[in-house]
């Protein structure tokens, strides 16, 4: 993991002092709420429906056990004993008081954490593949570049008041688990002709009111030019992005209105000016950062996983969990584990302080003390021995964290919705809970197979509903909560934006509607291996719409 040096520690401490001063001035009335807002936002402090919310950065979703214990401590001391892991690999505390926030930030600084740029119209926390450094299909570690970008973007003087927020995601594997084309900038690490590292760069992706997939702006940017190219894109955006309407202010709109060719031309012209200057990234420096992400001390050689096979044969629930919640690892005898934060009927992404402590303990015992947060709102132990899985499972079960549903219909993504959020039109969490209960039977879930349900409580799409196989969007219809369903979205290397299937459903109807969609898929799939998404892409929306609204609706 990345470790702060003296510079980083001093930087974060200064930042805490700066924000403490801003909070003091706000409380003293020297700053109006309007003037305080962009300052608190740049430190992750939101004003929600009932209280302030503090969003803590977990750079590219990587946490140490020590950091996790600190989060548990903060949840207990300053909040109501739990935290909420988000689709941006961050953690949110929903109930801190403004007066306590400087103290919380000080506690975070002690474990090399902060809340810098987790909100506001600036470059947000850079996200990356949650299986970075572990997965079998990876060709380069995205954390190295995510860390370099995190540093370059921290308190960037030119890009702190962009037209709108700006999100960067990085992947270095053949499966895109970072949803790079749903970000303002998506980076795919590639190897060039002589195996040298470079980046395929997508620009102009984003969800929200006008969902768009990122378009390729360059098929190969050399490693040393990475920051120069990013600065060129950001400068073009900062100068020419729309500022007249916040709903048209993301870079996706600029790319859409001007066309990718025109944006490419401007970015390339800017890049030609900046290239080779102070932002040049020397290979030695990249290698120095890369050493922070060296693999942990794996036991070498193939490890006989006989213990695992035996335990799976004895305990079917364990076998299901292993089948669903572990992932192919690059090191023989090892695997990565998904710790589901989606218990049946639970709040997606929530973890209690005691659970955080349990995960930290398990990570120390079995996983080199390393933890990840996935954008699916689950936790990951990236490196564990397959033969340790029975003990890990038992320890997770004790902490009520052993749900074996990764990627299944109950592994639902949901934004906080109207239960917390001042922007929401409808509640998300109760819909997620009722869906989870409806599909509780694990055998039924396995029969349905891979399908993702993603729920957003408003058009801002924090629940990523546009890229859910089944997306649910909460809307307000004459003061009543209604839910619009989209089908066929996907976030990865085969990304697509879901299509609205028809008129919305009331809160009472929406769970039945989802069940109808799932049943229709089961009925029409060629065989159990054909996933929901594949079947939908083959069949189109017609049979699903007919199932929901009746064939008569087609004539209408």
């Amino acid at each position, binding site marked *: 993991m990345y470790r702060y040096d003296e510079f980083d520690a001093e930087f974060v401490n200064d*930042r805490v002092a700066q924000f403490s001063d801003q909070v003091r001035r706000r409380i003293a009335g020297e700053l109006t709420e309007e003037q305080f807002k962009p300052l608190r936002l740049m430190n992750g402090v939101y004003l929600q429906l009932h209280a302030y919310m503090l969003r803590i950065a977990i750079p590219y979703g990587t946490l140490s056990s020590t950091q996790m214990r600190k989060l548990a401590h903060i949840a207990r001391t300053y909040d109501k004993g739990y935290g909420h892991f988000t689709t941006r690999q961050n953690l949110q505390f929903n109930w801190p008081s403004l007066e306590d926030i400087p103290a919380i930030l000080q506690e975070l600084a002690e474990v090399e954490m902060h809340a810098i740029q987790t909100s506001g119209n600036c470059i947000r926390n850079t996200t990356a593949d949650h299986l970075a450094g572990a997965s079998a299909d990876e060709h380069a570690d995205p954390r190295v570049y995510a860390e370099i970008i995190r540093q370059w973007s921290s*308190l960037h003087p030119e890009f702190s008041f962009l037209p709108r927020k700006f999100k960067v995601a990085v992947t270095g594997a053949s499966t895109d688990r970072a949803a790079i084309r749903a970000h303002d900038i998506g980076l795919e690490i590639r190897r060039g002709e002589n195996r040298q590292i470079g980046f395929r760069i997508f620009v102009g992706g984003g969800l929200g009111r006008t969902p768009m997939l990122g378009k390729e702006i360059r098929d190969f940017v050399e490693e040393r030019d990475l920051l120069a190219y990013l600065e060129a894109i950001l400068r073009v955006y900062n*100068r020419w992005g729309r500022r007249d309407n916040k709903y048209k202010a993301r870079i996706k709109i600029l790319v859409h209105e001007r066309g990718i060719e025109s944006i490419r031309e401007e970015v390339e012209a800017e890049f030609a000016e900046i290239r080779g200057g102070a932002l040049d990234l020397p290979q030695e420096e990249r290698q120095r950062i890369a050493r922070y992400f060296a693999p942990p001390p794996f036991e070498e050689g193939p490890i006989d996983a006989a213990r695992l096979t035996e335990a799976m044969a004895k305990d079917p629930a364990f076998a299901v969990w292993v089948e669903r919640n572990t992932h192919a690892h690059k090191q023989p005898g090892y695997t990565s584990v998904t710790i589901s934060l989606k218990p049946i009927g639970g709040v997606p992404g929530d973890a209690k302080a005691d659970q955080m402590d349990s995960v930290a303990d398990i990570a120390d015992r079995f996983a080199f003390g390393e933890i990840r947060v996935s954008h699916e709102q689950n936790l990951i132990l990236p490196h564990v021995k397959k033969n340790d899985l029975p003990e890990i499972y038992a320890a997770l079960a004790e902490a009520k964290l052993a749900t074996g549903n990764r990627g299944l219909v109950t592994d639902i993504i949901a934004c906080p919705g109207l239960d917390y959020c001042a922007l929401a039109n409808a509640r998300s969490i109760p819909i997620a809970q009722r869906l989870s209960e409806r599909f509780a039977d694990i055998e039924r879930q396995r029969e349905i197979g891979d399908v993702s349900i993603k729920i957003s409580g408003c058009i801002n799409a924090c629940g990523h509903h546009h890229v859910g196989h089944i997306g649910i969007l909460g809307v307000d219809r004459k003061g009543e909560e209604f839910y619009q369903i989209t089908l066929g979205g996907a976030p990865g290397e085969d990304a697509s934006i879901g299509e609205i299937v028809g008129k919305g459903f009331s809160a009472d109807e929406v769970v039945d509607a989802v069940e109808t969609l799932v049943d229709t898929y089961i009925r029409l799939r060629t065989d159990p291996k054909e996933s929901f998404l594949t079947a939908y892409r083959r069949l189109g929306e017609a049979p699903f719409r007919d199932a929901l609204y009746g064939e008569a609706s087609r004539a209408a």
Partner: protein
Amino acid sequence: MSARLWTRDGFAEDRWQAVPDETALPGEGAVIVSSARLEEARETNALELGVALEPGEPVEDIAEHLSRLSLVSLPFPAFTDGRSYSAARLLRERYGFEGEIRARGDVLIDQIPLMLRCGFTSFLVSHEPTLRRLETRDLPEVPLYLQPVGSEREVPVGTRPWLRRRAG
């Protein structure tokens, strides 16, 4: 409340006179005009010349006049409008402009450190709490930087090539 001029050295008298487009140019003195008037104004050799760009007006448009200019005033129609940060960097780093770069409009204490880094040297401030804070000369700044912006006021520090610290 009228605006006061602040620089790194403290509050200063504003010796510049803004001349609206409809007013005749004086024969001498330090004047700030709009970009539309630069062609006309640059002919009067006794004038010390500055230009005020409007929001969204690209610095490229005044590039040919920069050698004749001693001041460029950049607008912040709202503190959330960050376009002028880019404009200032371009003036300093691309065009090598060495004159005064002035921030005007919604200039607030917490943004001034960012503006300084981008190359601004003077600030026309009317926000009362900002003025009070500037009296103390204590800027709410993190004087450690994680990105080089080509400023001579910043020096390399630590092991990474992009780290900087405020000089002096």
